[in-house]
């Protein structure tokens, strides 16, 4: 889901060696080289505050303020180029296991020099680079450099035990966040206060980031100006990030029973039951679409009924009727059912981990 991107990422993002040891990052780097030609000697990994899942995957680093670039050699220690001058490196150090931190200034020159020392380089997440930087990097790496972003994504979507623990922690925060919103709603609070109550709960549980959208009549809006009056039903979307990993959920908050919400929940339960390893994405999406018909789909499910989720709020594996993918063990999906019956809309969702033989519901709207 698109949410309003904050101008600075302020939440806790320090590297916790106990939760995610250096060895796990070393394993990821070893895996990085498997699909690469042996002639590739290093990788340039770009991350911006908005798009940095790959950078975080290899370095744990969250670029809170400005972009960062990891230079990862096939042999030897990686370097991390971080925004700001030398005097800003101190704030970057706790966020990563990488020892060698350097200022990002004149990144293109740094990459050129590193290429001269190292050899042929692959590029990861180059599409998120600003045009000028990407063009300058292109002069070193060639106009069409070897881009292994897709190969990395294919590795990232299967979560390790430690990653799964982070996702579970995020889901636990999501649970209490939505519960706090529901409680505030039941108490008759205004729409903004309801959302703020949820956000505060998430932050106080140590969430790294919290994003919300909310609105009446099934709409979803970012927070722009306070809405003081109570809204019933209030549709909310919440995404919480814990230890780098996202969990998200939709909830339709209402003090009265709603047939459309009940129906959406029933369809979701059916879809979850079908979400077993080996299940084709398109078949699962088709099942949901069939159950929703002849009702109209809610706008957030027009294209997809969910996607895999992890270090990126939206990973590229999508649950839709044209996807060629299948559910695989180790993946985590956000699954959504949204529909409108007689003009009354509702969206409900669940966080689902795909196991070896079945699925594990990590969170579901009650």
């Amino acid at each position, binding site marked *: 889901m698109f949410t309003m991107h904050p101008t600075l990422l302020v939440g806790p993002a320090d590297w916790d060696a106990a939760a995610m040891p250096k060895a796990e990052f070393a394993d990821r780097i070893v895996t990085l080289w498997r699909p690469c030609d042996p002639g590739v000697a290093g990788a340039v990994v770009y991350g911006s505050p908005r798009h940095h899942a790959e950078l975080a995957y290899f370095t744990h680093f969250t670029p809170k303020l400005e972009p960062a670039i990891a230079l990862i050699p096939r042999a030897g220690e990686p370097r991390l180029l971080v925004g700001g001058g030398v005097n800003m490196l101190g704030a970057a150090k706790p966020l990563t296991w990488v020892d060698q931190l350097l200022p990002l200034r004149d990144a293109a020159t740094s990459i050129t020099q590193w290429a001269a020392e190292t050899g042929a380089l692959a590029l990861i997440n180059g599409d998120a680079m600003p*045009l000028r930087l990407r063009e300058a990097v292109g002069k070193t790496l060639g106009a069409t450099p070897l881009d292994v972003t897709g190969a990395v994504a294919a590795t990232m979507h299967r979560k390790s035990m430690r990653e799964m623990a982070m996702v579970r922690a995020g889901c636990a925060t999501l649970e209490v966040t939505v519960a706090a919103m529901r409680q505030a709603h039941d108490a008759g609070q205004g729409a903004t206060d309801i959302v703020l109550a949820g956000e505060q709960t998430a932050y106080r549980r140590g969430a790294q980031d919290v994003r919300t959208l909310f609105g009446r009549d099934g709409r979803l809006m970012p927070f722009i100006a306070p809405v003081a009056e109570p809204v019933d039903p209030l549709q909310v979307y919440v995404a919480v990030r814990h230890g780098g990993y996202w969990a998200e959920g939709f909830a339709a908050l209402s003090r009265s029973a709603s047939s459309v919400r009940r129906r959406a929940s029933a369809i979701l339960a059916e879809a979850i039951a079908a979400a077993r390893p080996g299940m084709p994405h398109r078949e699962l999406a088709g099942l949901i679409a069939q159950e929703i018909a002849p009702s109209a789909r809610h706008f957030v499910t027009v294209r997809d009924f969910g996607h895999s989720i992890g270090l990126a709020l939206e990973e590229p594996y999508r649950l839709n009727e044209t996807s060629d993918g299948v559910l695989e063990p180790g993946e985590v999906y956000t699954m959504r059912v949204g529909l409108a019956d007689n003009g009354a809309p509702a969206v409900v969702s669940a966080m689902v981990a795909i196991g070896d033989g079945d699925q594990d519901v990590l969170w579901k709207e009650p």
Partner: protein
Amino acid sequence: MVTFDERLKAICARMEDRGLDLIVAIHDGAHFIETPNPVMVLSGFKSLGPAACVLDRTGETILIVTPAWDAERAQVVCPGARVIGGDDMAEDLLAVISQHPKAALGIAGLSVAPFGIAKRMADRFSNAGSADDVVFDAAVAKTDDEIAWAREAARIAELNYRHLLQIARPGVSEDELAIELRWHSKSLGAEDNFLLLCASPHNRAVQPSTGRKIAEGDIILAEITPSFCGQLAQICRTVSVGTASELLRTKYELVVEAMNAGIGAAAPGATMADVCRAINAALEAQGYGEYCHPPHIRRRGHGLGFASIRPGDVALDNPTTLAPGMVFMIHPNQYLPETGYLLCGEPVLITPAGAEPLTGRQAALAELS
């Protein structure tokens, strides 16, 4: 002072001078204090995802937003525009432009757009020149609405700072403080907050928060920058954890003096460089000349977006002449070898009479007892 419509007319007039039929503004939706947003200048709309705005010489505006479902909000914000909601901004934009095959185009926002978007634009519009100056020059002075929003953002910033003084204490981490303040400013109506917050007995710079716990003897630096209706305002403040030393008090008075020298120099007709020189002079007079240049300092303030960040930096190399309606930060934010980095700064509005701080209470060294 100008209205949004008057600004748009000024841009259209400039298009005519430049022989441009259309301006195409693009933005990726990653709102950042240092990156201007030409789509916001032309439409007033702060997007969730990549967005574009096409303006013709008559003032007709087409606003392209992603995701598709955000089009309804865009239409409310921009009732006079034709709004297109889609899931691929570049594709929708190219479709719109293809209806004007012979139009002379200028593009704004291309150089800072992500490669994945910008490359498609650059390939398709290889003959189009940059229109950054056309868009952002017209937005060098804020509109009446933007000034009102900046005042409200400054009010929220001061309340946010007051909250910081209430909750900061040894044992609380920088991150905990930062997220609580971010939440608090939202509860006051700010939709965003560029909040740099760090603490140390001797800070080298103001930096993003980490998990470091605040300790007795620290100096907390806080750059509090709420956004109200998309307009930022900032205050820069310094807090001593425990009783401040006489040395710290004296040095902080010096940076306040430097800031006031800058505010005093900021009048219509002066340049941004003049403001910087006035600040530097106060510090140089006390023997800190070498600390008035990189790597210790690169600017003494800056414009305040999100839409336009003109008039740019308070820096020696900025010749921009000040005029009424400009809003920007004046902050000495100086590293001194005896105390470390100290934050001190106010948002100001240039009026015919000079610089008016938007804050009710100017920076003063605070102490947590």
